[in-house]
């Protein structure tokens, strides 16, 4: 159905209230369509007009915070980033992200994912704690070094990759694409020196070995991140580490301040500050 003819949309939503229901069930709600309506806008209309007790997570409404990950018409996506018209019909089927326990209605229990994420130290690990706590400057990094991890840093931890991963669905030991992808993001950051510390978790049975490379995580990622690639690169790093061929980089040093460098000739001085 084209957007021009669309006047009403049916939302088929999987509902579950643990205080009232013994199992999840489906309910349908008809709401008026308005131009440019996203799936999240529709959920707000359902809540306003039909089901005031409907629960979900959302915040920024612009695909940045990663709160509104849901299973929409069979695919894990962000509700705020999905136009109703792009689903190609007048029915929107919404369920909570699979592979997670349900807190209520469309709210998945993401705590296990974040526990694993935290265990893999998703932050820059360095020995010079003093410099980190009280920085005297920026750590030096070239544009090429930035490109090695830049795409992985776009992850917003929405959990869509975890919901789409067939291995995570069946293997209770597997860490999942998001935590592993983020571990690789920091391992490949030249400012970081935490590879050995992260290896204590990664090189065990919950590590990247369990990935079967289905690639679904990369297909559904709303930010275009390629976690499947990160996991394969991590496998390579760990194999090279076992063979003692892994190049351990020294964490990047603090960059020289502009005042410490010699100014090149012929470059005009910047204008004086006006404020």
């Amino acid at each position: 159905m084209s957007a021009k003819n669309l006047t009403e949309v049916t939302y088929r939503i999987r509902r579950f209230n643990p205080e009232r229901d013994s199992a999840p069930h489906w309910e349908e709600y008809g709401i008026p369509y308005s131009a440019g309506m996203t799936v999240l806008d529709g959920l707000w209309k359902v809540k306003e007009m039909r089901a005031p007790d409907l629960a979900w997570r959302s915040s920024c409404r612009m695909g940045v915070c990663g709160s509104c990950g849901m299973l929409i018409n069979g695919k894990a996506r962000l509700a705020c980033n999905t136009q109703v018209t792009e689903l190609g019909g007048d029915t929107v089927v919404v369920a909570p992200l699979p592979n997670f326990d349900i807190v209520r209605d469309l709210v998945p229990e993401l705590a296990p994912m974040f526990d694993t994420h935290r265990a893999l130290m998703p932050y820059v690990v360095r020995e010079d704690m003093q410099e980190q706590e009280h920085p005297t400057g920026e750590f030096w990094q070239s544009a090429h070094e930035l490109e090695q991890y830049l795409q992985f840093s776009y992850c917003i931890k929405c959990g869509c990759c975890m919901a789409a991963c067939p291995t995570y669905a069946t293997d209770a030991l597997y860490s999942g694409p998001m935590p592993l992808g983020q571990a690789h993001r920091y391992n490949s950051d030249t400012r970081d020196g935490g590879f050995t510390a992260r290896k204590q978790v990664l090189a065990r049975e919950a590590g990247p070995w369990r990935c079967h490379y289905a690639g679904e995580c990369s297909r559904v990622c709303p930010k275009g991140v390629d976690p499947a690639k990160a996991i394969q690169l991590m496998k390579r790093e760990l194999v090279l580490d076992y063979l003692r061929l892994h190049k351990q980089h020294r964490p990047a040093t603090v960059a020289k301040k502009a005042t410490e460098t010699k100014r090149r000739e012929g470059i005009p001085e910047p204008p004086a500050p006006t404020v």
Partner: protein
Amino acid sequence: MMRDQKLWTWHLAAGVVILVFLGMHMTVMHLDKIVHFAGLNPAGGHPIDWQNVIARGKIGAFAVTYVVLLGAALFHGLYGLRNILLELDPARWLKRAISVVLLVGGIGLFVLGTWAAIAGFSLAKAM
């Protein structure tokens, strides 16, 4: 060194060994009309003709390749099977039992296969 990191690396290495040695086996046994290796099929005809089998059996290096291929294939296959079984999330004791059974079974098959390769070599030499 972490156990799974080590096992995975050996799993990959065994895969490479299989690729090379199984490739050699397939070439000798099935591509003999295209690729000729001097001394491996000296009687001509089919590679599994008795004279050819005896001639290859007398080559010590050929027996060694079979032992290496057997070891690599057993490790690669049984480690893969273990991974599949462990994905079913068995209880801790069952997980350990699976590992022990596969390890003992693998060692047993390797010993049997190695004995067969050495016995084959000795018999061929005696002929």
